């Protein structure tokens, strides 16, 4: 039995494996993960993306600690730092309001510390990005595997369902739904309800993207010899799905979820920008961008900072995702 990924002659990887093998110890078989990791390590951009992602997660988790160091608070007003006539931070130049206490300046109107708002905003962005992706991946994988493995009317039914979801005007629906959600529902209230609703909207309507890919992969894998062999040995459908198909689907799932996270972060930012995201005063990058619009000419840095935060995050996840795809599935290059 072979695994599909190391079967073809991977011209790039093999000489290295051979060289390493000769240099030190006896040639030994390497697992799929080891090969992928070796490929990934050589992709400088992907590693850089990965490092930034880890840093971002660490910053989001350590937000309370980090803000303690600078002494800022995401909700505390510092109106003594605001020029009341123009509502902008006191001082001249585009870096008005920047100081050791407020390393990224202060928000126009309220004087809240931008640095701590960015950190706490990262929590929301990453939380929603990850959770929504998890929802999509679980739904998409289940539907994709079932559709691809069983085929027939099951496939037709699930595929048409995916088409319906893909044709759904998601943004309009999200705006409408987020506008009418009550103050408390499903045992949740306030911000936790908002997060749950956003996760649901973003996750539940994006699963067909990953579902289609998984379905296609399953269709291809289903016809492979090792699946036939397992079946002829009397393996149950359950065994085939969990032991033969899913391990081989791990690579595309990992790659596409990494690529979905930034899309979902952007979507959350867009919803917050349009005013249906997290409720104030909880910071969110999209909301910060929206707030910055009237001040772009008098306090441009207030627009640049959250914009950069979104840009860096999305870029890092995309680089990492691309690198992962190249490493796990070199044929896709």
């Amino acid at each position, binding site marked *: 039995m072979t695994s599909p990924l190391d079967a073809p002659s991977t011209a790039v990887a093999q000489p290295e494996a051979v060289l390493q093998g000769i240099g030190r110890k006896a040639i030994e078989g390497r697992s799929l993960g080891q090969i992928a990791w070796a490929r990934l390590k050589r992709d400088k951009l992907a590693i850089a993306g990965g490092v930034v992602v880890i840093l971002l997660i660490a910053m989001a988790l350590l937000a309370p600690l980090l803000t303690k160091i600078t002494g800022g608070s995401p*909700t*505390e*007003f510092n*109106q003594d730092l*605001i*020029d*009341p*006539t*123009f*509502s*902008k931070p006191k001082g001249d130049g585009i870096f008005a309001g920047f100081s050791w206490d407020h390393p990224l300046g202060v928000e126009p*109107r*309220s004087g809240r510390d931008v640095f701590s708002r960015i950190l706490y905003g990262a929590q929301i962005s990453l939380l929603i990005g990850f959770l929504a992706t998890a929802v999509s991946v679980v739904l998409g994988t289940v539907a994709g595997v079932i559709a691809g493995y069983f085929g027939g009317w099951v496939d037709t039914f699930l595929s048409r369902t995916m088409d319906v979801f893909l044709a759904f005007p998601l943004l309009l629906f999200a705006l409408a739904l987020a*506008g009418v959600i*009550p*103050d408390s529902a499903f045992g949740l209230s*306030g911000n936790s309800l908002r997060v749950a609703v956003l996760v649901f909207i973003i996750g539940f309507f994006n699963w067909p993207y990953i579902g289609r890919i998984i379905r296609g992969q399953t269709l291809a894998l289903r016809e492979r010899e090792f699946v036939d062999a397992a079946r002829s040995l009397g393996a149950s459908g359950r065994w085939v799905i969990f032991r033969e198909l899913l391990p081989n689907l791990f690579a595309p799932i990992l790659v596409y979820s990494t690529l979905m996270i930034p899309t979902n972060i952007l979507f959350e930012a867009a919803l917050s920008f349009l*005013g*249906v995201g997290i*409720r*104030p*005063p909880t910071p969110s990058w999209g909301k910060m961008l*929206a*707030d910055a619009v*009237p*001040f*772009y*000419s*008098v306090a441009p840095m207030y627009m640049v900072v959250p914009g950069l935060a979104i840009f860096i995050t999305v870029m890092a996840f995309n680089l990492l995702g691309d690198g992962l795809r190249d490493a796990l599935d070199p044929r896709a290059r």
Partner: protein
Amino acid sequence: MRRKAALAAGLALVLAITACGGGGNGGNGGTAEFNAADTSIVNASTKAGGTLNLALNDDWDSIDPGNTYYGFAWDFARFYGRALTMFKPAPGTAGLEVVPDLATGLGEFTDGGRTVTYKLRPNVKFEDGTPVTSKDVKYAVARTYARDVLPNGPTYFVDLLDAGDYPGPYQQPDLNQFTGIQTPDDLTVVFKLKAPFGDFDYLAANPQTIPVPQAKDTGAKYQEHPMSTGSYKVDSYVPGKEFILSKNPNWDTSDTNRKQLLDKIDVKLKVNAEDIDNRLLAGSLDADLAGTGVQAAAQSRILSDPNLKKNADNSFTGRLWFFVMDEKVAPFDNIECRKAVQYATDKVALQTAFGGPIAGGEVATTMLPPNIVGYQKFDLYQTPEAKGDIAKAKEALAACGMPNGFSTKILLRSDRPKEVAAGEALQQALAKAGIQAEITGVPSGGYFTRFAGAPEYMHANNIGIAFHGWQADWPTGYGFLQQLVDGRTIKAQGNTNVQEMDLPAINALFDKAAASTDVAERTAIYGQIDRAAMEHASVVPFLYAKGLVYRNPQMTNVYIQYSYGIYDFSQVGKQ
């Protein structure tokens, strides 16, 4: 330059106005300086000719005088129509006075205030030369009863006149069936009211009394060409694009309420707000018709350049920003808890959230803004520098039986960034006194039909505090306060008395004001209502709104008409 002679004339006029209105500093009439048009006529001149270029970020709801509810539209309608009365064309508080326009005098109240009679000026003609008669005024008011055809305008006449269930002239073309107005002769208009209404002369200034000839009325299509009685007539109106007027040859030149200096008026519609600012500062526009104030970018340019600043004005718009505490939602059913919020509120923080002293406005302590008849200055809940007094707030909390504070919710319109910023500022200020408030944001569409204006929603969701903003339909205490604090206006939907204040004493004061035909007495009552409402502590006014507006130095005879809070376009000319 022929400016000198004109300047002297302008000065004389200003002095005359200051003498009767008692408002403002009359000394700086004529010259362009910062805020000069707030209290005086800038660039007084009799020079004729030129085109007035205006722009609007939005569009009219309808240019039909009987079918519009925008302040700028009421201001502008005076170009092409004469209502029975109008606001005195004068700067400062003198502009709050009503003077006769199509009528020869103010309303004559008889039958205990239930009958109001106006005599029309003879020789007023429509633009086609047909003389205006009392029937045309009666018809104009009658057609506002047809809410299905003309849905936009206010319903004061429908509510006040004793006309049974008259369905409007489109269903009942026989005007004799409309009993709300009688026309004993061609120049007499007699209004029959269900109950006395002291402020009736203010209602008569609404463009709904601008005469409409029944033969020319085409219902909802009348706005394609309203028949002018004013100094200008409609040349063309293309919704979403432009509105052009030219001189009306049949205008009654004995009319002293408006001028006919310009050759043409050109209003561009649906123009981007920042584009308007840029064109204003470049001089290719004369003014923003809506007069709500320039955007942040233009504001910093204007205020930092003395040459631009002298052409700008910073006047009250007539709007009040405030928030209310629902007296039916615990713990605000206890006046001491309401007082705690009154004292804890940092009004300066709210002012900064709304744009600061220039773009936002002045810190408010009363419900009536200073440019409303009946305004009296007082502050029942004074705090140091208006920044809140935590000690006094805690005292009130203790008196309320909640020394450790309580939790509540703040309702606001989440698509209004300034309101959200103000909500966050209030949240911060209340937290200092131990009051934990959670912000609930809802869309501004439906704010008064489904959310703040629906008491059931407020109770069900335990909303203690709701943001609110208000501008009067006519600038008296009655026009401003009645919909806000008269307990009989509380309704299940579209409720503007959000705090659900229902005090028999206040309700009785409104009736007393309505029944009074003495201006001084009415004015005094408005002040009493304001104070009584503030004593009840459920309304927290925090900002008398102001806007920074720019006037092209080319415009002549410019001043701010206080009753609309925007430039009085009926008087301007071009240099």
